[in-house]
């Protein structure tokens, strides 16, 4: 098993190395090596994951205990030692399924999608590096290796967002993503310091055990545990783009669409959720931190959903929906529904990956146009894409029996039963909003009349098979995976896999397992109703409603709608302007920060250096004054020597030296 897990990491990094070295010379054939590596890695990953989930040796023990080993000792610094250690348990396995599968499909998809790009080999090299980093992230057995992978996925995200580096917006978005992520990473690294200073190890299992012991022994103040949990959570906020660090993800859509699908929907942004789930023993000891997690999550969910309402860029709608869904996951974690959150992570990985790849197919079809105002009526032109995206949107809206329904309702149900009524209520509203904006997107893109540029319209074509196959496979997965893992509700396979892992945390939090009962049925029905309501509203406004809703008419209709609700104008403007977060941050960090930098530079050159130069000036002036003495005549100098000698003699004779 060591070999397999090592191979899982070795394949992508080898693919990266090989492609980086020889890819340029392979031209259009450059995809063979990296895609081959990832397909192999997928196979290996599946073997590893299912060995773990089914409890094969070496994953022994009735709770599917993990299996870990160390590759080598990475940092030995006195009593601080960190191994490059890997660890696989059921949680890792669940993530492996998503990462490997979506990753593999995105690789295949990219063969066609990036075909005409001059940076073909570079793209695959980066993708492979990302796969390596992401796999390292889920396989890490200690905080520091996790942090390393954390930064590496950030790097790949940077490289891939800025893939089309000639576009200024892409370069800026890449930089923004990296820097905003660094803010989160700062908190994460401080959390790591705190963990080490408190328990003296960074290994997950040892650290959790040590923490429990310290708390049991009363050696730790509760605020310190909360502090550690919040610091770690800061990292998750950055990576998973939660409020207030959510601003980078929509901009990250500047990257190629497969990247958005893989990194900014299905895998990397989930890292924060994974990490909080991984660190559940710490969070379980800090209920206040859990409340913060839930609050941040659900607030991001509604914030992002409200912004998604008015976005016109197809990828940005999806980006905000990703933010919103990640918010759900954090809300799930915060209310103690760890399994449900991971379940949502898995299903969301599939259907959001599907949606992004579908949007890529759309963009491809209309010649790199992302503005939905210039789409419309595409359903008949690109039927495969339309069909698969419809599946994804329905799943996202939470319509049974598709994937999103199961996981989202588990989160909402847990929030309600665990007493987080506000979380439930907001989540309930967001469910409706999600359905609405998803079908607004579907409507603007696929239904109604075509608003495509006439030059382009003639050339609209369905994507090649290398792109269609991943779409179909993901759509199939989206259809079955919810029921496969989540049926029956609160008792599906996913619970069998993951509940044992989170059992201690649930006990600490005092959460009971309750059988699925009448209350739950009511909740489920309510949220399905809510989703249907949102869906119906969107279809009514943007849908294929025959000739009655031609575009200008719909526009007027929407305006009328906006005008009819009090305060709606403000809300609309807020939504369009993304609640002015970008402007606020620009003012705070770019304008004010730039001023501060310029001021400090002035201080440095005038005050600090100025005082040095001032000393020099005084010295030079003194030298000018004393220059009279320097005649340049040897004998004057010799006279100086002689007179000095005389003076010394006289001093000697006067007895000064005795």
């Amino acid at each position: 098993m060591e070999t397999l897990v090592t191979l899982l990491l070795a394949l992508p990094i080898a693919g990266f190395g090989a492609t980086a070295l020889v890819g340029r010379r392979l031209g259009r054939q450059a995809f063979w090596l990296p895609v081959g590596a990832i397909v192999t890695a997928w196979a290996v990953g599946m073997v590893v994951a299912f060995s773990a989930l089914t409890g094969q040796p070496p994953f022994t023990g009735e709770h599917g205990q993990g299996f870990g080993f160390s590759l080598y000792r990475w940092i030995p610094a006195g009593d601080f030692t960190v191994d490059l250690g890997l660890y696989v348990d059921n949680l890792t396995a669940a993530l492996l399924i998503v990462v490997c599968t979506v990753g593999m499909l995105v690789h295949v998809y990219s063969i066609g999608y990036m075909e005409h790009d001059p940076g073909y080999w570079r793209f695959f090299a980066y993708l492979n590096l990302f796969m390596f980093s992401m796999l390292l992230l889920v396989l890490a057995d200690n905080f520091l290796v996790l942090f390393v992978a954390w930064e590496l996925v950030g790097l790949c995200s940077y490289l891939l967002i800025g893939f089309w580096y000639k576009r200024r917006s892409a370069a800026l978005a890449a930089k923004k993503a990296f820097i905003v992520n660094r803010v989160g990473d700062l908190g994460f690294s401080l959390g790591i310091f705190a963990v080490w200073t408190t328990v003296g190890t960074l290994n997950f299992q040892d650290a959790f055990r040590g923490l429990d012991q310290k708390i049991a022994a009363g050696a730790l103040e509760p605020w310190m545990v909360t502090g550690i949990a919040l610091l770690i959570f800061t990292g998750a906020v950055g990576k998973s783009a939660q409020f207030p660090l959510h601003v980078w993800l929509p901009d990250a859509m500047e990257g190629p669409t497969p990247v958005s699908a893989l990194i900014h929907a299905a895998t990397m942004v989930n890292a924060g959720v994974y990490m909080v789930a991984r660190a559940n023993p710490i969070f379980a000891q800090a209920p206040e931190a859990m409340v913060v997690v839930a609050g941040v999550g659900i607030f991001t969910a509604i914030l992002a959903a409200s912004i998604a309402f008015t976005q016109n860029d197809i990828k940005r709608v999806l980006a905000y929906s990703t933010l919103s869904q990640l918010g759900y996951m954090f809300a799930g974690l915060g209310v103690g529904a760890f399994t449900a959150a991971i379940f949502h992570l898995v299903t969301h990985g599939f259907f959001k990956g599907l949606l992004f790849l579908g949007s890529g197919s759309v963009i491809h079809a209309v010649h790199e146009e992302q503005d939905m105002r210039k789409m419309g009526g595409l359903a008949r032109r690109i039927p495969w894409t339309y069909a698969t995206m419809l599946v994804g949107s329905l799943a996202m809206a939470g319509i049974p029996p598709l994937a999103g329904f199961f996981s989202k309702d588990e989160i909402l149900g847990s929030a309600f039963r665990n007493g987080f009524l506000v979380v439930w209520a907001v989540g309930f509203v967001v469910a409706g909003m999600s359905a609405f904006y998803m079908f607004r997107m579907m409507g603007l893109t696929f239904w109604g009349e075509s608003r495509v540029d006439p030059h382009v319209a003639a050339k609209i074509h369905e994507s090649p098979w290398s792109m269609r196959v991943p779409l179909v496979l993901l759509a199939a997965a989206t259809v079955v995976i919810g029921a496969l893992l989540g049926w029956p509700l609160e008792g599906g396979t996913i619970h069998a896999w993951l509940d044992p892992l989170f059992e201690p945390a649930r006990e600490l939090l005092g959460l009971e397992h309750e059988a699925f009962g009448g209350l739950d049925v009511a909740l489920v029905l309510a949220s399905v109703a809510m989703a249907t309501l949102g869906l119906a509203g969107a279809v009514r406004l943007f849908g294929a409603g025959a000739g009655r809703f031609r575009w200008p008419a719909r526009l007027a209709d929407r305006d009328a709608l906006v005008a009819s609700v009090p305060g709606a104008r403000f809300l609309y403007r807020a939504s369009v302007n993304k609640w002015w977060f970008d402007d606020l941050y620009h003012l705070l960090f770019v304008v004010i920060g730039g001023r501060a930098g310029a001021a400090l530079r002035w201080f440095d050159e005038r005050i600090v250096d100025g005082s040095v130069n001032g000393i020099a000036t005084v010295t030079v002036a003194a030298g000018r004054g004393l220059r009279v003495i320097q005649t340049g005549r040897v004998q004057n100098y010799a006279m100086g020597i002689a007179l000095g000698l005389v003076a010394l003699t006289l001093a000697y004779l006067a007895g000064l030296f005795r």
Partner: protein
Amino acid sequence: MTIPATVPVLGWAWDDLLFLGLAGILLGAALLVVLGRDIIHSGLWMMLCFGALAGVYALLGAPLVAVAQVLVYVGAISVLVLFAIMLTQSKAGPLRLVFHRQAWVAAIASIVLFALFVVVVAEGDWPQRAAEVTRTATDQLARLLFNDYVLPFEGVGVLLLAAVIGGVYLAKRDPGQGGSL
């Protein structure tokens, strides 16, 4: 005819007489060197001064040094100086050309310096303040020079060679420069 043991009228030892005479010539010539207006005369006085010094060396029982003094200073260096004087064609000038404005300060300084020497000599705690002069045996000198001091000796040889080459190089007229000195 026998020479009396002491100087007839004065009753001094001959050595003392010799010393006084030589010292007088030495200092007188030296003063003329630094005070004379005509630089050529200064050069000639310098020869005399060095010659007298050679006598003092002989008196001190260092005949080889005395001979070397005659050869090197009276012979070589003085001639060199005289040549240099002629090459630079300087002749006697008015006092302000001969002496610096700081001459009187220099005089005081050198007198004070001499006073210092007097004090030091008077106060010095010398082991053999008045003793018989020890003569230097030339063969011993040679042995010492070519055994213990052979390295410095060779070093001095190289130094002289370098000085000769350097002197030639510096004084050589640049081919392109032409013209008289």
